């Protein structure tokens, strides 16, 4: 008998056949990443949790549409991206479009608990908040979620060149913003 670890595609196949426990196991593997991604997008724990539940419910309902189980991660984050921006649209007054600067500047998530020195965390949060929404999401997907450029393009539904442009513009801003903070807080 050969033992091997149960991988995501195994759980996806079981979940497709209606095995809810297999899907719950799959959720337990991804909920932290999805929750933190949404938390950094929407800046509110409760909203992030509600959206996470919506994301996993929608993913379960559409699991049979996933052609390649190996591409589960970008597919799941594509749903999360859509849910996050859909919730922002719902919050806006009717007829008003969502401005790209909606996430930046004054709407800094203030209630994210710091794990490192408070000054450094505030500096990072502030620097991320000053980014354009698209740029900030590119930083989150690349630096905090570790996606490849092709996967980011799939999640954001745009060309790889656009993804790189957003990320590198953000990186230039962050490099300038965080250089003094690094010298103050981290060796």
């Amino acid at each position, binding site marked *: 008998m050969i033992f091997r670890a149960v991988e995501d595609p195994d759980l996806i196949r079981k979940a497709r056949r209606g095995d809810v426990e297999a899907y719950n196991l799959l959720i*337990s593997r991804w909920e932290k990443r999805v929750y933190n991604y949404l938390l950094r997008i929407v800046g509110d724990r409760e909203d992030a949790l509600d959206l996470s539940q919506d994301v*996993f419910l929608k993913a379960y309902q559409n699991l049979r549409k996933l052609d390649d189980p190996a591409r589960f991660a970008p597919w799941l984050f594509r749903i999360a991206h859509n849910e996050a921006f859909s919730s922002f649209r719902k919050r806006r007054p009717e007829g008003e479009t969502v401005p790209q600067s909606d996430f930046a500047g004054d709407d800094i998530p203030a209630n994210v608990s710091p794990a490192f020195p408070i000054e450094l965390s505030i500096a990072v949060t502030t620097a991320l908040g000053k980014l354009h929404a698209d740029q900030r999401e590119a930083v989150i997907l690349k630096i905090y979620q570790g996606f490849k*450029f092709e996967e980011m393009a799939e999640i954001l539904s745009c060309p790889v060149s656009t993804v790189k442009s957003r990320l590198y513009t953000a990186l230039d801003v962050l490099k300038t913003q965080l250089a003094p903070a690094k010298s103050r807080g981290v060796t």
Partner: protein
Amino acid sequence: MSCSPFDLRDYLFDELAEEKRRQVDQHVRSCGGCHEELERLRITHSTLLTLREEEVPQRIGFVSDKVFEPSGLRRVWQTFWNSSAKLGFASAAMVSVALLLFTFFRQAPAMSSGVPVYTSRIEAQVAARVSAAVEKAVTESETRQSGKTAALLAAAEQRFERQRETDMLNVRQSFEVLQKHYNVRENLIARYEPPREMK
């Protein structure tokens, strides 16, 4: 501005192939400016990573409730509609069946208004020619048959005449023989003399 052969940010995010990474490694070792730029990028990257992930405040999970689960038939139906390959195959099969039905059961194409008149004229001509041909064939056949009958009758009459002549000849010969027998008898009777003892 970096003079590296490839983008240092691609190098930092591990988006370069192995060969390109080696070239950047060699360049950074010998180029102070690019070395400093790469260090700044690494510091920024590590600073951003100080913002750690949070734990999910409440575990996300679902329970299985048979009431809300789709039936087996519905699941098959959803699977069918959610699969573009299966839908494509079904569409191709339907088109094939439609083509087959059309091929085997289609009616003759409708003719224009002038065509039936032309057709009826042709049909009348064909019918007339067929009738003439049949009449001619019947006449020829009857002629041939009557000729044969006449020849047979003539041959039979000849045979009958020959037979009659032969019979008449035989009758005549028989009559002559009888006549001779009668004459002989008459002669014998006339020349007969009864014996003397009887007188």
